[in-house]
Structures are given as C-alpha cells and as structure tokens.
C-alpha cells in the first residue's frame, strides 16, 4: 500500500458512514433459511436427545417451506426492468445481492431440492431405526466407542442445520452481486458440505476419505477463486459486478490482469460444477458421502454454481466474451466426451452417477455458450430449465440408491443390481425413467433440457458444441442402456438385491422426482415460460 493511500485512510476525518439500507422483505427467503440453521444449532444445544431428531426435521421443513413461500411472494412482486435486455428485479442490500428473475427462480429450485434432501436425510427406517449418518463422527471406525455410541442410539442430527447453512450459502451464491459476497457464499455452502460428506454410518473410512479429498481440493479451488477475485479487483478497482462490467467495456490497458483473473475465477467455479479437468474429486466424493448428502449436493451445488458462473461471466465479463468463450468451448467439449466415455467403464452405481453428473456439467456449459438475450431460448433460461430437470432426476436416482441394500448397508456395485426389475419392478422402472432422462430420451425432462440448451447454443453460433453434444449423448446412452439391461434382463447374482422398505419420506421423494421428470418431458411449457419470463440477469 502506498503512503498516499495510508494517509488517506488514517488522516481523513471519519466520513459519515451511512447505515446500510437493507430491504429485508426482498431477501427474506435467505434470512429464513439462515435463521432456521441458527435455530437448528440451538435445538442441537438444548433439546433433549430423544426429541432432537424430530425437532430438527420440523425446524428444517418449516424453514424451507416458509422460505419457499417467501420466494414466491418476492418473485411475484419483482418489477420489470427494461434495460438493454428485459429483466426483473434488481440489486438490493447496497448492491451486494441481486434479487432478479434468475435469482428468484434459482432460489425456488434450490429450496425444492433442499426439501427433497431433508426428506431423504430424515429417513430412519432403512437401517434399523437409525439415520444414514454416523452416531459419533469422532469415534474411530470399528472401535468399541463406535459400537457403544450406536447402542445408545446417538445420532448426528447436526446434518439438518448443516444442510440449512449449505442451502443458505447456495442461495446467496446464486444471487450475490459482488465477487467478495460470492466468495463468502462459496465458503458458506462448501464448508458444511465437506463436513456432511464425512458422516456416513456405513463404510466410514471411505466417507472420511471423501470428506478429506473434497476439503483439500475444495480449499485449493477456493484459493484459485480468491486469487482471481484479487486480480479482477486490481483491474477494475471494484468487487461489484456492475462496476467490473463497466471497466471491462470501457477501460483500456491492464488486460493481462483481467485475463488472468477471469481464468482463475473460472477454474474455481469449474471445480464446483465438476467440469473436466477439475472433476477428479467428483467420483470419490459422490461415492463416499452418505447417499442423501450426495443427492442434495449433486443437485444443489451444481445449480448454485452454474447460476453464479453465468452471473459472473454474463454480467461482469460479458464484454470480454470473446476472451473466455474459447475456454468454455474447449472445456465443454472435453467434459461431455470424458463424462460420457468414463461412465462406460464404471461398475459402481454412485460413481456412474458421478460421471454422468460430469457429463451433464458439459451439456450445461454448452448452454452457457448460447445467446444472452433474444426472443428464443436464452442461455439463462435454458440452463435454469436444465438444472431443474437434472436436479430432480439426480435426487431421485440417489434416493433409489439408498433403497437397494444388503447386509452391509447400501449395495452400490452394479453387478449386485442385476435382477432388480424382478425384485421391485416399481423401483426399477423409476430408476429407468431417471436414466432415460439423463440420456435425453423424449418425453422425459432430459430431452427438453438438452433440446433447449442445444437450441440456445445453436442460436449463439456454437454449432460444433451441439454436434459434439449430440454425439456425446449418444455415447452416454450406451452406458445407461447397459444399466437398464442389467436391471431387467440379467440373471441376479446369488439372492439378488434386496430392497429395503422405506418410510413414506423416501417414497414421496421418488414419486415426486419421477412425476417432475415426466411432467417436464410432456408438459414443459409452464416451467419454460417461467424461466423465460425470469429474463436476464440484472446488475
């Protein structure tokens, strides 16, 4: 820091600081969720153990539902802004949050995923009356202490406040309007997830390894993100997306700082969305984490990170589009191809779904290459629709994974799934519907989402991406088909898989996600209209 600026800070008379003017009503969904999280911490501290689990569920569900209602109210009250592009809503809380159409839609989407996640967390009928989470994370796996804790029926009901914190972070991430806020949100959403990954009741070593890997790589990527922010600040002199955008379009010189900053921020975000070559953590973490957490994480993190990425790159770096687009193109292509090809070699259901999640990150990046405005499907609306369809199917697929079990807990080896179609036709059909949606077969949400991102990309001139995307989906289909063949036609190994009888909680998650997947395939109009009306980002 130069002497002049030190002088400026120390010597100047304390200029009157205005009390920040915050419109609490507009950001109420965010406040409700974070409030529910804090309340959950207090519940954990004071409510007796016997009532704790149920109280936590109640707090989380009420919080999510209340936040959802608040989101709908906020969304209905957004003003239409006519700028360069049509948008709704605008910055609030001193410009640190942008509650615009895409942000509100993402909030609603995340809350929906959050509700499904909480229902899965709450399932206790699968494992002898205990939840999927370890009794006491601090005991060494397989030790006498662990058995003692299990016998006492101790449970980590902290997952509910942790999930609420993560959810709050995701919602903040999707609507943050300056880079610093984004970084805070990124950490708020990541830290609870690192922790939750290590809480599996079964196969705890795998789970702890997953948490460790996720934490180390995540911390590394956060550092990239932060370094990028610093560089962009050096270039634009501001953290605000609007000011950066102005600087990008008008400022001359300092391009190197901007380019380096964009690249580093892109790396940080691509890590979160699991795009190649920043995907290495995904299979291990998805496999090791407790399956309900995987479901929540797969749907929620991807949605929040993609919306944040679109916001940064469309709003702040929109003027430098020709500089970042080639990188996005290249990464989209290798991500789609790698995800599709690598999933072919998988023998574990959760790893397979992880690679499919990588491939879907590629398809979503194709959407990002599309148009930012126009009459047809824009990038933002296509990506939002895709995220809903993918998230619903992913949560549903992981919910099915929690139900297929043997004596050692969930049995995720694909070979053990042979003959599921005979054991439980309903479950097998549900899983097939999710796989067909991942594959993009018509009349499932996956088809309309692929069609809309491809349409947006084609309008944006990204036809090579569309061609590669179609080829990659055909490739990926090979694998999904293999799984379906296994479910229905392969002879079962030994006694075949057993399907645990779940409580209505898990059943309702499977039923809701199947319904959403099919409705989005047959009648996608209402949701498409909604995301279309959400308009563009407002800075």
């Amino acid at each position: 820091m130069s002497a002049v600026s030190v002088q400026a800070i120390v010597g100047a008379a304390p200029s009157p600081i205005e009390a920040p003017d915050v419109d609490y009503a507009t950001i109420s969904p965010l406040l409700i969720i974070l409030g529910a999280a804090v309340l959950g911490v207090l519940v954990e501290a004071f409510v007796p153990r016997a009532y704790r689990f149920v109280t936590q569920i109640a707090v989380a569900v009420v919080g999510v539902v209340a936040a959802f209602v608040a989101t709908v109210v906020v969304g209905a009250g957004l003003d239409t802004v006519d700028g360069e592009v049509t948008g709704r809503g605008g910055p609030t809380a001193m410009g640190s949050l942008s509650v615009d159409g895409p942000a509100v839609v993402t909030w609603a989407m995340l809350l929906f995923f959050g509700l499904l996640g909480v229902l899965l967390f709450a399932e206790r009928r699968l494992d002898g009356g205990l939840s999927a989470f370890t009794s006491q994370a601090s005991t060494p796996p397989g030790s006498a202490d662990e058995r003692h804790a299990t016998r006492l029926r101790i449970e980590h009901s902290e997952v509910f406040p942790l999930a609420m914190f993560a959810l709050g972070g995701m919602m903040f991430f999707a609507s943050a309007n300056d880079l610093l806020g984004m970084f805070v949100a990124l950490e708020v959403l990541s830290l609870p997830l690192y922790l939750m990954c290590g809480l599996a009741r079964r196969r705890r070593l795998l789970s702890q390894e997953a948490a460790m890997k996720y934490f180390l790589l995540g911390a590394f990527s956060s550092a990239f993100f932060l370094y990028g922010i610093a560089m962009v600040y050096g270039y634009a002199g501001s953290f605000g997306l609007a000011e950066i955008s102005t600087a990008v379009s008008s400022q001359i010189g300092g391009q190197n700082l901007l380019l380096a900053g964009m690249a580093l921020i892109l790396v940080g975000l691509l890590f979160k969305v699991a795009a190649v070559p920043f995907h290495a953590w995904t299979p291990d973490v998805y496999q090791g984490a407790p399956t309900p957490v995987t479901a929540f994480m797969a749907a929620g993190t991807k949605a929040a990170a993609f919306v944040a990425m679109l916001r940064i790159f469309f709003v702040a770096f929109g003027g430098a589009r020709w500089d970042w687009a080639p990188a996005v193109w290249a990464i989209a292509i290798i991500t789609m191809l790698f995800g599709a090809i690598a999933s072919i070699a998988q023998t574990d259901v959760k790893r397979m779904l992880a690679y499919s999640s990588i491939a879907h990150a590629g398809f979503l990046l194709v959407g990002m290459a599309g148009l930012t405005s126009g009459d047809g499907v824009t990038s933002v609306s296509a990506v939002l629709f895709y995220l809903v369809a993918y998230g619903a199917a992913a949560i549903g697929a992981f919910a099915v994974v929690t139900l297929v079990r043997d004596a050692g807990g969930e049995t995720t080896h694909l070979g053990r799934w042979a003959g599921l179609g005979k054991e439980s036709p309903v479950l097998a059909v549900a899983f097939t519907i999710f796989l067909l949606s991942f594959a993009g077969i018509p009349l499932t949400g996956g088809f309309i989402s692929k069609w809309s991102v491809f349409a947006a990309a084609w309008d944006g001139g990204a036809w090579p991406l569309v061609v590669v995307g179609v080829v990659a989906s055909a490739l990926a289909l090979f694998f999904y088909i293999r799984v379906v063949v296994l479910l229905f036609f392969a002879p079962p190994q030994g006694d075949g898989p057993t399907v645990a009888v779940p409580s209505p909680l898990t059943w309702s998650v499977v039923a809701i996600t199947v319904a959403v997947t099919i409705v989005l395939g047959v009648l996608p109009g209402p949701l498409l209209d909604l995301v279309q009306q959400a308009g563009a980002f407002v800075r």
Partner: protein
Amino acid sequence: MSDYADYLATYASVAAIIGVGVLLAAGMLGVNRLFRPTLTTPAKLLTYESGVDPVGAGWAQSNVRYYVYAFLYVVFAVDAVFLFPWAVVFASIGWAAAIEMAVFLGFIAVGLVYAWRKGVLSWT
C-alpha cells in the same frame, strides 16, 4: 452465426501447437522408455529423502485439545476485529448499529453455546 466460428478458428493454431507439444513430449518420453533398460531392485524402489532412508510413519497427530484454543481464539479475535471499527462509527449511526452488532454477537454466541453444550470447552 458463423462469424463466431470463424473467430474461434483463429485459435486453431494454438490448439495445433498444444497438440504438437503433447505429441513431442509424449514421443520423447515414450522413445526413452522403449530404449532404456529397466532393472528394478528393492533398494531402487525405496522412497528416499536427501539420500537418507525414511524413519517412522508419515502420519503425526497433534493433540485434539488444542482445537479448543484455536476455536476460542477465532471466536474472540473475529469479534474484536469487527468491534473496534464499529466502536468508531457507532455514535454517528446510532441504534441501528447497536442492533446489528447485537445480531452479529448473537451469532457468535450461538456457536459458543453449541460448543459449551457439546462439552468442547471442558479440558478432560
């Protein structure tokens, strides 16, 4: 729609150079691998550091109790960092500032309360 593709085509040379680079490196290493003799002995496969054989396991743990120190330090240090500048402008903003600082302190207190109830603060 194609001007964008044309623009991207200018990156083709970059892609070509990357490709040539990868091929070159892989080729050199590959040729090396093909021609060199590989005679491994147990001694050659040993991990070494500055010519010294490793001693003991690579895994050392520090006592978990120090976590409490770190925890309390973070709680109160972060408090202090925000309290000092707040104290400077408190008078000019007024009650709003008091309430907002109370909310902030409340959040910190919730964490502390949780730690206390979980028995983190007791030494044994």
